[in-house]
């Protein structure tokens, strides 16, 4: 558990964070989706609970970042950290919570033997997330997602 700026505590995700994460997602997306998060959080907890972190302020979850280390996919043989889902409570944005979450998760990825970390951002719809990752030193990769409508 990392003690960061006063009052903010970064710690691994646990199953009692479901309610707070559902609430943050509801604030961001406007949708109440507990079933989705119950399954998602169960997934991340059984994969590697330390690869997903939350930021707590006064005992309340203010942000989360879920990810994992995987290898052998998309031609990437070496272990690679993936940040897959993230969200900071709109009331707490711009206070470096996202940055602290990323630092903690990246440190864990390093410990798990990853030399790089990747994520996917929709440049059209997620301009804020793009700016966030850019500020953290992420650069566009030559690897491009391809998609086909079915």
């Amino acid at each position, binding site marked *: 558990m990392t003690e960061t700026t006063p009052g903010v505590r970064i710690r691994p995700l646990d199953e009692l964070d479901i309610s707070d994460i559902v609430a943050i997602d509801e604030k961001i997306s406007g949708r109440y989706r507990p079933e989705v998060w119950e399954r998602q959080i169960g997934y991340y907890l059984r994969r590697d*609970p330390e690869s997903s972190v939350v930021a707590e302020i006064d005992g309340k979850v203010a942000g989360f970042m879920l990810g994992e280390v995987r290898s052998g996919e998309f031609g990437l043989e070496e272990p690679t950290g993936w940040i897959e889902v993230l969200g900071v409570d709109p009331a707490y944005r711009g206070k470096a919570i996202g940055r602290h979450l990323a630092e903690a998760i990246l440190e864990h990825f390093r410990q798990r033997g990853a030399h790089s970390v990747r994520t996917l951002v929709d440049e059209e719809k997620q301009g804020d997330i793009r700016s966030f990752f850019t500020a953290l030193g992420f650069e566009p990769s030559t690897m491009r997602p391809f998609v086909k409508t079915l």
Partner: protein
Amino acid sequence: MSVKTTTLPKKYHEAVLRWKDVFLPDYDFLIENWDKHFPNDQTFQLCAYREMGMCAEVECGDMKGKPKAKKASELPEESAHHLFGAIRAQASTEFGSIQQHRLTLARAQEEEEQFWILRMMAEELRHGYQMLHLLAEDDWSSVSKDSTSDVIDDILSMNTGSHVLGAFNIDFDSFVDNVVFCALIDRVGKYQLQMQKISAYQPMAESMPQMLREEAFHLAAGVVPMRRFATAAAKGETFVTMEVLQKTINKWLPRGLEMFGDERGGGTNVRLGLKPMKNAEAQRQYYREVEKLVRDLNLRYLRARLENLTHGESEAVLDRILAGETVEGVRREDLLHMPHADFFRRRGMPAFKMTGSQGETFTSAHDYLQHLVRVLPESYRASRDYKDYADALLAVEAGTMTLEQASSRMPALRRVAGACPCSKSVRWVQDEPAAVTASEATAQPVA
């Protein structure tokens, strides 16, 4: 961070496999269907994991800052003694919980949840295996007169009723027990593992990280189905009601609290550098965590029942209902509450205090038992464990048994042949050994 994988010497490994064939017969089914339920997750492996590169100095107590012991022989005798008892107790709980879960596993209504529990059972088997690894890897002869193979044999022959800790001697009556047990009793396990992560005995500390990773999922395997039960109940489905959930919480929480040990104790473990927290402090933190779970379940129920509420509104409405107001037809009785920490206790400071589930006080055992009729599951009250409790309570009231005698009778505490005579961690045995079926009798593990 690297993890070392080892297996037990062949005869012990095979003994565990034989045990598994009897008590976890669905193991092969789990492995065959692993990819269907846990795609891309590394397939389960029965082995011991040791985390490398952990803190090498004692982290608390009298020896703080000194190098941790890599072998039992490097520990002061008192520590080795405590540790040996703790490893055996831990092993017994891991195997014990599988014996409980298997009773009702087949009754799950949802295949997904059933597979979560089944995976959890396999991981408990691995946890037991990990503890046997600690016993088999080292030389414990300075604290145990029994050979390693006798100690392991002893652990693998325990049945529900003869385990070291009370919670592992209570039969499950329905799948609700499987999930509530994960949410409440595995949560105690999480605390124990977290505390042992700083153990002055390095092999114990190194065993904890992987067990803790697995434990995180066990808690989810309990909490997520509980959330789903609460949602379904709110929507008027008629399977698991809030009342059943409440009664099942009432059944297990007192046992969970007692697993932390007597509220006055735990100082020795801290002094010896084996755990960082005394019993009462760990128990308090645990209680607060379960309080959060209960509140989350209530919020989940409320949002499912009053669908127009926003998150902020539901928090406020919940507080109003808990204060006694009825809001849009939802009453306080429709929701869950946290059982009082003194409720239905038989060990520790509140043992036999006759405190009601919501903190009410009772002065006669008769009235208290009538209260228990209302707040505990019917099937549980028909059990041996409950009858032992009721008999002890009446004996305490009649003055034919002291509190201490009653506490230590739950279940009857008695040394059994073969247990280390100098050990303080005596095995609990019921007066009449639980019936052993023919197939179980053949599970005599270490030949």
